[in-house]
């Protein structure tokens, strides 16, 4: 194709950041700061949920309790993200996995300290809490020893 057609470069820019409400699920993030993993269970029907949620998606009840969901998991599937989104361009490529906890819940997180060649479905994983340099809590999988 020949030269690019003419365009006007917009003068107005838009940087969007969001304030994400966690009033009803702060127990998860508070626990994570202490290295613990809590999620919600419906007191009426017993439904376990992850991500945690204040209202039960099974019976629509709103009386939920916080339970420890443990850290042991088994790898279900994974990928290695080489082309990253624009807000992750400072990151090295990363491995993302979905792991199944012993209670049946599944979680998506990075797998730290491993390589694609060493991973396959069935590999034992462990959840660990992390903090960003700015102090925000998050969590990763590591391959279980």
């Amino acid at each position: 194709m020949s030269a690019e057609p003419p365009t006007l470069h917009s003068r107005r820019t838009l940087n969007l950041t969001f304030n994400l409400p966690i009033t009803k699920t702060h127990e998860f993030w508070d626990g994570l700061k202490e290295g613990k993993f809590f999620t919600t269970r419906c007191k009426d029907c017993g439904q376990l949920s992850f991500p945690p949620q204040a209202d039960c998606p099974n019976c629509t009840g709103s009386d939920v309790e916080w339970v420890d969901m443990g850290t042991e998991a088994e790898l279900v599937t994974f990928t290695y993200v080489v082309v990253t989104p624009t807000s992750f361009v400072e990151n090295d490529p990363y491995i993302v996995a979905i792991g199944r906890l012993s209670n049946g819940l599944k979680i998506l997180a990075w797998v730290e300290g491993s390589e694609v060649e060493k991973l396959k479905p069935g590999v034992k994983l462990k959840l660990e809490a992390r903090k960003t340099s700015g102090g925000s809590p998050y969590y990763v999988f590591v391959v279980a020893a």
Partner: protein
Amino acid sequence: MRKVAIVGIGHSKFGRRTDVDIAELAFESIKGAMQDAKVEKKQIESITLGSAGGWYEESLPAVVVNEYAGFHNVPTMRVEAACASGSAAVRNAYLTVASGESEIAMAVGLEKMTEVDTLTSVELMGRAGSYLWEFENYGMTFPAYYALYAVAHMNRFGTTQEDLARIAVKAHHYGAMNPLAQFQKEITVEKAMGSQMVSWPLKLYDACPITDGSATVILASEDTARKLTDTPIWIKGMGVSSDSANLSKRDDYVGLGATVDAARKAYAASKLTPQDFDVATCHDCFTIAELMAYEDLGFCAKGDGAKMVRNGETEIGGRIPVNVDGGLKAKGHPVGATGVSMMVEVSKQLRGEAGSRQVPLKKGNGLVHNVGGTGHYCYVTVLSRSG
């Protein structure tokens, strides 16, 4: 509910269309569809625009497009179902005609994705799931979501990267025969296998491109359709379904539950089976997505998708030709336009107007499979020459 037919089809050139703005791009297919249907503006009683948006400057694309095309005081809306927004627009137009509210309705699919840079597009698609639990800390991308399915499918059924490459080769083969396609050149298995890794095991040639484009269909009631055209293409049934926002909530990763459910509903509505189709468009945003669609739509048993590829069963002359317009992979994937583009292609095929890409017509039925996100939404539409 009344019978509804497609009576007009229009399609822009797909590709990097920096020569047009969103309204000019939409107009290309709107004008084409109106000329094809031989209808005037005043006959169109409803306009639905399918567009996911976010990558172009306008917040209210429906009214911007309508103003440019000269439509006033017309019932209108923009609908979103991610990459199935086009099918969602057709569904709304279909319902307005089927219900008796409109005699003639128009569905426009539109996306303009190249007004932002490539990695911003990657970001916007990566946020198409559950933001806090998948993107905020983990930077998921659209290829990454489908790679999770590819790894599981390969592990369970022995599907190989070469099987996936063959789907890309097929797409480019037919794209080379489609003058409206973004990529009109053949590729080889070796070229696909050697392309840049995007999200393991999916490579550049496993992925659809970022595309600008529009497509339009005009729908009419039975009485009106028979007056307008000798070749109405009937909408025999639409099956629609959905699945969880978080991929971690899915039961399994070897197929899309929303496709299985939407297909079941579409087959029930049309009283047809997976064996009754001469042609299909399957949502191949990634090669693995097309392979899983063969299985989830019932063209073969779960796990046998790779066999269909190896045996050439989805090529012209095979049991069920799939994506002989080049598919999302080679024709391009302007998100909101794709579902409507699929309707245009299958209508062309069923009219017998697809030229060098024409499939043999035996049963006169075609299937449109359009997925939104990573199986978040699914629309399966059955089209037919017979009413």
